[in-house]
């Protein structure tokens, strides 16, 4: 069967399950005895195993299977969760995520078997190691059976019966696995009594198993006879039988801590491989949206209404009737607006999508850095356009790492300064008008302005006599490429990614970022993003006979100036003074490569901002402000600087949207 059509669905669902594994495991770490959590984790692992099996991802299936066993033992109270077990479980989830990444990139799960991890999981249960083979080894029966079965085994022994555990493996090509299993059950029941089956009989009947199941039976017959009887059924590949002689508890504690070095090395290697593959093909499968069906219904209804009113207008156009015609047009207008809203909502997803992976990341980070802090998140349900959400991950990861690494002090230092031992990092999102605001705040030591100044002088960005800068201006240096105030390069800061990258990304998304900091109190990064990238408010301007759109969000103000107010400074650069601020001036017609006769007494200047930096753009004429729908210029024209897209105007003509960041770049 061709499973590729289900791949997208598998990826989406697997991602959800992995996320919920991560979330619930974090909670479990706080409350290791919470049975409900263990149950939920078990369910996710179980479903994931089934899904991976169905798709033919055997390595992933094996790993989840081993994980499921551990969880089952914990669920049945045979295993107590401790931090070593949690570590192995977290590593397992990481490995599952890596499988998923490889699947996203290549469509197959790759060749990594994670034998080390499977062994660690098995050894938690005192199970034999993968390499040594399974047959004939001691079976830790105490973990396989519940008390009821254990008693049945004891009773059988005392009455002179034999107890066998039979691992039945079906042929991988076997169709109707449950029917085959039924035949096995029937055959075995002729020779003895089944006291336990794994998975439970109900699951076997529902085909909720892979190609293996095991049953435990009580019988007077010799093991070999039973084996042969089962093997005589067609499409049974193998039956492994073990006689269970004693029911003495086998403790599983000894091997719990075995997370071997070799295995760790192995898993880091996988990460590398996955990263490489990831970079190559991430775009392929990331553009799907799962949409609330209600929203689509609304959309559908509105579209049908639109079609109806359209035919009505067509009819009216034939025998024109002024008033009715106008009413219809108004109605059409209203529906179009609602349609626009509805479509926008389809594209909106909660920022939770990005936020949800941070608790886990911060937990690991705290361990890595040897610091103590808590991550508090709020406003996870704040919705923002899907395209923005997808791009938001990296900048936020950087800011959070930044807060943990540079912001939060060591516990001892915090105590010395009269702060609570454990730091606080807040990640919050909220709506503010047509914007979404995301804040990353820490209660750490704040940015050391003097240190930044010193560094700026060292780097030649600042002269000794220019020290009367405002704090804000000093902080802006942090956003310059390769500017780091960290003295020693750590695992975290040595990545070659700085705040400049964060800033560029945010600006690409049409947003902006600012920093508030107070020495000794903490730092707060505030990111302001548009709700959607698809529709923006823009100012339409003309140059010669061409119309251009400039996003309103990047315009500070529009002024008229007299020709003689334009001054020329060093190297022929033209500037104007606005409220004692020097603003460089550019001519739009030169930027877009048009010749116009600009012999006017007064010029219209659109002041655009890029961060704090202002640039005046002289335009020919203003046409006014309106909502525009951003359309891509397509792949063939990709990479053109200056133009960030195009829009279709009311009369059907096309106008270019100017990229304010390029306009402002000097």
């Amino acid at each position, binding site marked *: 069967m061709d499973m590729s059509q289900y791949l997208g669905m598998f990826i989406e669902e697997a991602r959800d399950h992995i996320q919920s594994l991560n979330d619930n495991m974090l909670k479990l770490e706080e409350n290791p005895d919470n049975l409900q959590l263990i149950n939920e984790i078990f369910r996710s692992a179980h479903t994931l195993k089934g899904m991976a099996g169905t798709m033919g991802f055997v390595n992933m299936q094996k790993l989840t299977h081993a994980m499921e066993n551990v969880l089952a033992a914990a669920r049945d109270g045979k295993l107590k969760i401790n931090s070593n077990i949690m570590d192995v479980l977290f590593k397992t989830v990481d490995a599952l995520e890596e499988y998923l990444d490889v699947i996203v990139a290549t469509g197959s799960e790759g060749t990594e078997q994670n034998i080390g991890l499977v062994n660690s999981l098995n050894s938690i249960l005192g199970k034999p190691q993968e390499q040594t083979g399974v047959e004939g080894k001691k079976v830790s029966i105490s973990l396989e059976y519940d008390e009821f079965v254990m008693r049945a085994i004891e009773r059988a022994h005392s009455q002179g019966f034999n107890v066998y555990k039979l691992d039945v493996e079906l042929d991988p090509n076997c169709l109707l696995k449950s029917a085959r299993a039924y035949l096995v059950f029937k055959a075995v029941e002729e020779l003895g009594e089944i006291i336990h089956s794994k998975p439970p009989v109900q699951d076997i009947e529902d085909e909720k198993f892979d190609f293996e199941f095991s049953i435990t039976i009580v019988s007077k017959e010799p093991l070999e006879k039973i084996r042969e009887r089962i093997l005589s059924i067609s499409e049974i590949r193998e039956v492994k039988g073990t006689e269970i002689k004693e029911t003495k508890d086998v403790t599983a504690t000894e091997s719990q801590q075995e997370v071997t070095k070799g295995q760790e090395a192995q898993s880091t290697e996988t990460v590398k491989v996955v990263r490489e593959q990831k970079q190559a093909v991430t775009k392929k499968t990331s553009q799907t949206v799962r949409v609330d069906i209600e929203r689509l219904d609304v959309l559908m209804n509105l579209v049908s209404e639109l079609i109806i009113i359209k035919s009505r207008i067509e009819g009216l156009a034939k025998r024109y009737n002024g008033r009715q015609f106008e009413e219809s047009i108004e109605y059409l207008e209203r529906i179009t607006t609602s349609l626009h809203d509805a479509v926008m909502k389809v594209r909106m997803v909660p920022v939770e999508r990005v936020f949800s992976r941070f608790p886990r990341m911060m937990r690991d980070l705290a361990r890595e850095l040897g610091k103590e802090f808590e991550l508090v998140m709020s406003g996870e349900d704040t919705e923002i356009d899907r395209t923005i959400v997808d791009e938001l991950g990296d900048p936020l990861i950087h800011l959070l790492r930044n807060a943990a690494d540079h912001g939060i002090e060591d516990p001892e230092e915090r105590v010395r300064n009269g702060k609570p031992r454990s730091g606080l990092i807040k990640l919050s999102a909220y709506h503010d008008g047509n914007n979404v605001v995301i804040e990353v705040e820490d209660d750490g030591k704040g940015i050391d302005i003097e240190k930044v100044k010193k560094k700026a002088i060292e780097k030649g960005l600042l002269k000794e006599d220019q020290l009367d800068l405002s704090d804000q201006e000093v902080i802006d240096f942090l956003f310059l490429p390769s500017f780091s105030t960290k003295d020693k390069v750590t695992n975290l800061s040595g990545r070659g990614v700085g705040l400049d990258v964060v800033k560029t990304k945010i600006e690409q998304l049409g947003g902006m970022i600012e920093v508030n900091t107070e020495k000794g109190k903490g730092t707060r990064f505030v990111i302001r993003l548009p709700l959607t990238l698809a529709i923006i408010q823009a100012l339409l301007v003309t140059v010669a006979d*061409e119309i251009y759109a400039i996003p309103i969000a990047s315009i500070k103000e529009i002024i008229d100036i007299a020709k003689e107010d334009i001054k020329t400074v060093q190297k022929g650069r033209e500037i104007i003074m606005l409220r004692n601020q020097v603003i460089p001036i550019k001519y739009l017609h030169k*930027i*877009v*490569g*048009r010749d116009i006769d600009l012999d006017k007494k007064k010029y219209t200047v659109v002041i655009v901002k890029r961060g704090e930096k202002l640039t005046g753009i002289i335009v020919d004429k203003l046409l006014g402000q309106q909502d525009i729908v951003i*359309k*891509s*210029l*397509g*792949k*063939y*024209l990709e990479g*053109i*600087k*200056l*133009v960030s897209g*195009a829009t*279709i105007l009311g009369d*059907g*003509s*096309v*106008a*270019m949207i100017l990229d304010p960041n390029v306009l402002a770049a000097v």
Partner: protein
Amino acid sequence: MEQYLIFRLADEYYGLLVSFIENIEKMMPITRVPNTKEYIKGVINLRGEIVPVIDLREKIGVPKEEFGDETRILIVNWKNEFKVGLIIDEVLDVVYLSKEDVDSATKDRNEFSFTIAKYNNMLINIINLEDVLFKKAEEG
């Protein structure tokens, strides 16, 4: 046997595999895109979709002329990755050409090479779309 669209550029005949062509449009207003190559005339609004338009004459080095009544824009679809419009002088015919019709001889112009096909006494320059879209040629 494959189907080709035969069209005219100045006084020469050209052919392009029909499977690439999505539509043939009459001339329509083209909005210039600043900072692009000369042969990219700009973009058009193709029923709500923004499509770049290339002047095929300029791209492959046939002398420029004014657009006329017969001027058309061939909307070609490159592997579902993007659409591009090609401005040509006149659409003539859609014909089947067999392998025998298509000569192995090639003609070079301005970095581009064309396979020659014979059809009803016409010599047809078969266009390699990949070359036209991606090969950088000297303009002019």
